[in-house]
């Protein structure tokens, strides 16, 4: 073997070795397959996606190995030997019609098979079949930069969604600002939340637990830190949790809890947990925080005035009055945030 051949083979082995590192890492972490397949086994529709994934992956893996093996074999077998002169030509073969037809038809047939299987399994993926009479419908709003969930009776939850195990769920996704995409990989695939339209995502959580997710569509500077958690709990616990959310529109603990959640998801991500400023300016003790009119205008219009430094998203679009009220009550109740007495007024 020539020196160059040795170099080529050694380098090829090195490349393969390096490529094997992530695979070995993956094998060392069996819990979530280390990313070799989608994670979603938390619902039958997620499971249906996984089955299709493995089906197509299997076919692709066979094709991949065949093509790469052929390539490596040809490289080794047909390399120019040291005794061969540079100008020596190989056999002058210009083509073969029969081969062309064969390798046109085979990929086409494989692809048709994949397409048929996918279309047959589509209802399972979309979870449209079965008895869905007790379906739970939750409205999901993507906002810059938090998730707002509204249960059938109007209870509001922010960033954390509680779902009962084993019950069909229909998420109705929309947005009041830019595009977002709701993705909790352990449960099922993602679906976009787009302003001006309502998209549906159906799933039936099949085991209890806490599932992490986030926004998958670039939505602005805090796109990366727009997480959501889905807590799948027993039907009984779900009832308790929902009941605890009741009364958000009246003075009380429930209202303060909503106000605190609103502060944490809509205000604190930019202005800091104490309102002392972070990406956004400090807002603690500003009169606007407790002035209902001014606050409503600020959170529904945002700040996008060329004369004012910075940009604030319209975080409060779609809020009912009681959510704004809850925020104001929470600010009033928090010593670090509440403006001094009599300090109400505009900015």
């Amino acid at each position: 073997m020539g020196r160059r051949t040795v170099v080529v083979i050694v380098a090829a082995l090195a490349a393969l070795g390096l490529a094997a590192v992530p695979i070995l890492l993956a094998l060392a972490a069996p819990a979530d397959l280390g990313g070799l397949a989608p994670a979603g086994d938390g619902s039958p529709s997620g499971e249906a996606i996984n089955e299709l994934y493995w089906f197509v992956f299997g076919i692709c893996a066979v094709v991949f190995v065949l093509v790469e093996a052929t390539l490596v074999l040809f490289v080794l077998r047909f390399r120019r030997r040291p005794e061969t002169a540079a100008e020596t030509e190989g056999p002058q073969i210009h083509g073969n019609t029969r081969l062309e037809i064969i390798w046109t038809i085979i990929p086409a047939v494989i692809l048709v098979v994949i397409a048929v299987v996918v279309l047959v399994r589509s209802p399972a993926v979309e979870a449209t079949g079965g008895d869905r009479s007790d379906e739970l419908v939750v409205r999901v709003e993507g906002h810059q930069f938090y998730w707002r969930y509204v249960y059938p009776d109007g209870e509001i939850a922010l960033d954390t969604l509680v779902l009962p195990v084993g019950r069909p769920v229909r998420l109705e996704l929309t947005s009041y600002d830019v595009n977002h995409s709701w993705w909790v990989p352990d449960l099922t695939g993602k679906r976009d939340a787009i302003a001006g339209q309502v998209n549906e995502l159906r799933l039936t959580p099949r085991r209890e637990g806490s599932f992490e997710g986030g926004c998958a569509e670039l939505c602005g500077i805090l796109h990366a830190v727009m997480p959501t958690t889905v807590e799948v709990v027993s039907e009984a616990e779900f009832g308790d949790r929902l009941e605890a959310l009741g009364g958000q529109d009246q003075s009380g603990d429930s209202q303060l809890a909503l106000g605190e959640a609103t502060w944490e998801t809509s205000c604190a991500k930019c202005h800091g947990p104490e309102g002392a400023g972070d990406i956004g300016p400090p807002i603690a003790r500003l009169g606007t925080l407790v002035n209902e009119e001014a606050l409503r205008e600020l959170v529904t219009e945002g700040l996008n005035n060329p004369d004012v430094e910075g940009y604030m998203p319209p975080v409060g679009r779609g809020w009912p009055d009681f959510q704004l009220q809850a925020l104001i009550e929470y600010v009033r109740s928090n010593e670090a945030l509440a403006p001094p007495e009599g300090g109400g007024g505009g900015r």
Partner: protein
Amino acid sequence: MAVRTEPAVPTWREGRVTGWLTTVDHKRIGILYIVSAFFFFFAAGLMAVLMRAQLSQAGNEIVTEDSYNQLITIHGTAMIFLFVVPILAGFGNYLVPLMIGARDMAFPRLNAASYWLFLLGGLVILSSFLADGGAANSGWTAYTPLSTDEFSPGTGQDLWILGLHLTSLSSLAGAINFIVTIHNMRTPGMTWMRIPLFVWAIEAFSVLLVLVLPTISAAVTLLLLDRQVGTDFFAVENGGPVLWQHMFWFFGHPEVYIMVLPAMGMLSEVIPVFSRKPIFGYKAIAFSTIGIAFASMLVWAHHMFTIGLPDYLQAWFMITSFSVAVPTAIKIFNWLATLWRGHLWFRAPLLFCLGFIALFTMGGLSGIMLATYPVDYQAHDSYYVVAHFHYVLFGGTVFGIFAGTYYWFPKMTGRMYDERLALTHFWLMFIGFNAAFLPQHMLGLMGMQRRIYTYDRGGLFEWYNLVSSLGSFLMALAILVFVWNMAKSWRSGTRVGNDPWGADTLEWYATSPPAPHNFDRVPYVSSSRPVRDLRQRLRENGS
């Protein structure tokens, strides 16, 4: 007979610098394109290294969230509009007239205008980092409403639109120039079934550009009007968010093939020469080029499987996307068949072609996975997609571009590059590339979304990210080796003759570098391998 002799007084146009600034010679314009495009490649690559540095560990704070979004936007925009498309146009400019035996492009002045528009557009896009509020930060896809004045108030987005207009205009004029040249200026005997496969690829590239560029130009014009004049083309109540995606991807997906087809054309030139065989299945490759170009315009909504399209459209766009795989597979099989029983000469151009086949196969197959729309529900907008399109566009196109660069470097400069540095470049790049992008498939399926500037997961997730970042640094090192090789060899490489590779096509009949008028006499062509025919005749006459 009295011969009037005038001393050759160089005019200002023939100066060392002004000669390049005022040139209308397709070869000089080609080199200007290639060098400028590589400059933008290095700039956009540097942005990628910054992004990978930021993501190498959980919770890094190397760049801010806002700068990160500017980096992803300009990295993507620059790689596509300022590197891949223009450098392919540059190779086309340099090679098409030589390959078809013409003296120049059909419209030399328009050709120069195309180059200068491209350069201006590139400078606008790069310098937009200095704008008030920084560069555009809504991604290279500039989805509305995020890119509207309401959510992206800075001037960066407007400069991005201006830059896109300039480069689109450049590409459009260039594409028309290519089409006119290829259709009208082929030398006698150069029939459609004899033009080099690279010329076929440039033809398909140009036709696609003419068909789809107006869509993106219209889309960004409407966006500009919305931003500056207050029109409502992309208003939410008019279904604007989805309208933008349709307009963008009707251009955006064919753009992928615009970027891949000429690189495939380069492979179809290089592989036969370094196998010492004719290309296997010339017609199959030429027609599959057309097939890919046609099918590429029917698949755009596979970028939109999660926006809530009706089931029948999901099915339709999955099947059309699958259909692109067939002509692509035909090309791969024909290249493999060309290698079969050849005498493979392992120089850098061939190695980069083999790298293309190995990596593009991976990108093509992950494309099948993504086109399977239920799988896309998980993989869409995740790092799986990032890995996929880098396997296609870097593992494929950029490896093809390096193959072409090393292959035609002796023709363009008259000098040979340094083989040892070129092989070092290849192996660093091949290993670095796989380290950078293979783990990204797993990251995507583990739930890492695209375009996030930070993450807080440790363990395997963080390890994959670290390996990916280290791979990108290795690629940066490979690029330094490449630059050093080019700079050194251009100045002091060994001189070469017309045809250092024993190649087949007409550009190797011209001198290295070719004279301004390309050929002393009009070449006549009687097959698709005219220079080999010439060698055969010389050998027969000599014996």
